[in-house]
């Protein structure tokens, strides 16, 4: 981190090969207070929820509470003791690629080794709807890896971008 900066782009990736189903950020530095992940793009070849896996943890250590607006109704969803990932919004695969999704996730105090981790997530698609989700990863480890996946048979559209930012505090 350059001296004086508080909001740094740690890494960015753009899908270009048309067959990418998973984008990974590894070796995430622990020098920030929060990290923020942004996804702008979509999926192809079938539907699917964007999944976020933390530290390659495939265990049942995830839970989340979701609020959804579909355009005609508001609803909720919850998963407890969920295995392998957070569900980060349901609109990665719109029926038309014109409507891309913009998702953002805040990983608060991600490097502390005392508490479980709280994640605030938003998913937005003008065609499909919008979601807000709070997630819990039941692990006291610092977060050092994130894997963002579209389940088979889907994969990320070319041009989908993923950006990981670090936010430092005084």
């Amino acid at each position, binding site marked *: 981190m350059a001296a004086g900066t508080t909001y740094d782009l740690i890494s960015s990736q753009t899908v270009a090969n048309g067959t990418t189903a998973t984008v990974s950020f590894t070796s995430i530095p622990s020098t920030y207070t929060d990290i923020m992940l942004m996804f702008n793009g979509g999926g192809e070849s079938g539907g699917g929820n964007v999944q976020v896996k933390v530290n390659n943890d495939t265990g049942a250590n995830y839970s989340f509470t979701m609020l959804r607006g579909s355009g005609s109704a508001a609803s909720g969803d919850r998963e407890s003791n969920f295995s392998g990932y957070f569900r980060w919004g349901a609109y990665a695969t719109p029926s038309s690629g014109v409507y891309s999704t913009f998702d953002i996730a805040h990983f608060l105090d991600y490097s502390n080794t005392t508490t479980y981790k709280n994640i*605030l997530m938003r998913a937005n698609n003008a065609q499909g709807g919008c979601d807000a989700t709070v997630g819990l990863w039941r692990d006291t480890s610092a977060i050092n890896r994130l894997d963002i996946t579209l389940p088979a048979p889907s994969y990320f559209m070319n041009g989908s971008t993923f950006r990981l930012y670090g936010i430092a505090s005084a």
Partner: protein
Amino acid sequence: MAIRSLKTGSFSRSLLVGNSFYDPYAYKSIATVSVGSGGSSSVEFTSIPSTYTHLQVRGFHKNSAGAGSEYVAVAQFNGDTAANYSYHYLRGNGTAASSGAGASQNYVLAGYQNSSATSQMGFGGFVLDILDYTNTNKYKTVRSIAGADVNGSGIIDFYSGTWRSTSAITSIKFYYTASNFVQYSRFALYGIRSA
């Protein structure tokens, strides 16, 4: 060694040589409070500089009342404890959506939290934006996304709020109405500058 300003011709020992300090960063950490082992009844940021356009507070917090106790961390500005605040909220509990409002309140809402018997669990998170906080011609508007999940229950909230004052915001106080912040709670204040 004195340095000569090409702009004014003056000499100075500073590289600024007569120019104002230039800070190129648009998003800057102002202050952070981490709650220590004894807990705390409130967290307050004071002497907030007026040099930014917006403020953002990123909170990670838990109350001390024990398992199952739910609280919303609330915020007051400039020490104003009178009923000059109002708010609305949109809430998801995992099965349904609900909403509510409060007029003539003593605070705005900042962040939901649900304690757990497990010490590591139950911390709520929020991202609170305080818009145009130095403007002296209009009341102040805030918004927040907040939530906590404790593996079996949880709440995700959106808040909007108004402080009916035209004063520039110079201090912010966070607290629970009937509990304290536990150790490892953390509040980070940022300033956001515009061009």
